[in-house]
């Protein structure tokens, strides 16, 4: 699990090392670190990190240990990796219903309806979803298509 972490460290020698110890102790793997020493604000230097922790518990423990060491935490949040899914639905579709269908975790980023020359409408939908939710989102879309009696063509 990747986390975005921004710390405010006192502009003194040894502060970065001190802040990194709780991360290492809790099995955090630092993917990137930006230490902006040339931009101190009121004696504090911002440090931005992307850290991969094996679990949420490891992350929580690291945060708690940092607080115990009086390290100021400006931002700490999980980075949710997202992917794009494109799908097409064919059928006598109620477009309003499709637009209003709430796909949990997913965000509709594109929508295109073909000018139907056949009796059946054809809709292309682009979704942005967290990678971990792809199966769940596809199941929901599948259910919605089934209810509409529409043919669903999802991407491989």
């Amino acid at each position, binding site marked *: 699990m990747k986390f975005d972490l921004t710390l405010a460290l006192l502009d003194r020698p040894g502060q970065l090392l001190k802040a990194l110890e709780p991360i290492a102790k809790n099995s955090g793997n630092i993917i990137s670190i930006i230490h902006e020493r040339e931009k101190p604000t009121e004696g504090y230097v911002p440090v931005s990190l992307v850290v991969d922790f094996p679990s949420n518990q490891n992350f929580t423990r690291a945060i708690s240990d940092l607080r115990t060491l009086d390290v100021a935490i400006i931002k700490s949040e999980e980075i949710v990796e997202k992917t794009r899914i*494109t*799908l*097409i639905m*064919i*059928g006598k579709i109620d477009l309003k219903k499709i637009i209003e269908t709430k796909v949990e975790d997913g965000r509709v980023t594109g929508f*295109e309806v*073909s*000018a*139907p*020359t*056949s009796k*059946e409408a*054809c809709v*292309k939908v682009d979704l942005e979803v967290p990678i971990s939710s792809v199966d769940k989102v596809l199941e929901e879309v599948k259910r919605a298509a089934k209810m509409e009696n529409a*043919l669903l*063509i*999802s*991407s*491989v």
Partner: protein
Amino acid sequence: MRLIIVGFGFIGRELVKAICEKLDNIKKIDNAFKIVGVSNSKGYLYNQEGLDLGELCHIKELSDYSQNHHSGSSSIQLIEEGAADLMVEATPTNIQNGEPGLTHMRHGLKRGIHVVTSNKGPLLVAFKELTSLAEENQCELLYEGTVAGAVPIFSLVKGCLQGERIFRISGILNGTTNYILSKMYFEGTSFEIALKEAQERGITEKDPSYDVDGIDAAIKVVILANAIMKRDIKFEDVERVGIRGVTQEAVSLAKKSNYAVKLVGTIDKNLEVAPKLVPINHPLCVHGTLNAIHFETDLAKELTLVGYGAGKETVSAVLNDLITVLKKKKRENIKS
């Protein structure tokens, strides 16, 4: 080795021609190789000294052969009474009960005859039984020609992916539907017109449901799942949607977004045959009557095979299986 060919339709006849052309190479592996029998539903030819390959190449019906014809006798009689070491089972596919191929294979394997086949029916309905029977009787049972014709799927997995964990297999497993969808993609024709053209060109049957409703692709999904993923599934376990509902508008809409619509069979935790959007730069995005198989594994990551999946090309797989048996038995004979 003495070979009998059960089924003298398109594959049986083309195999005889291929063997005839490549006999010198085959004889280098097994100098005693000969075809001793050929059968179809009307009777069989048998000569323990070997049939005349030159003559066999030029006949359409077994009764056209000048001698050794046993009219009205069954393939079972040939298997039971003929002295054969190896059988190619090439009777038509029957997905209801696998017959008559299933009975032929059972009889052959019980008699210790190695079996090579391109017949999907018996493997669809009795994969476990047949592989167990082969094992019990120390026989080879090879079936490369059953899925994607000339594309060496099972040989690749058996020979080159032995240490891999395969997560997913997906593939374009039916050339007819790929031909229809390719026509719709490149020429903007409707499904109905593309289908009619496929029928006129003899790519699909008058009743196209076997292809367009995804039945053929689903059979292959079952064989791949049982043979490669070591599952124990039946035809009914495959969720199946064909391509009848795919409209020209859908194909155009997909094309505008750099996708092609393809009928894809997928084996992972789900078993599915359905039309899918395939990105045009994805290795599965092949056109015309081509087949493609895409493996996703733990070490090799992604691997794709592409080739022709039906007709004369299938003979390539059957012949390779046949040579595999000849080579293996030669090695075993040298050791013993």
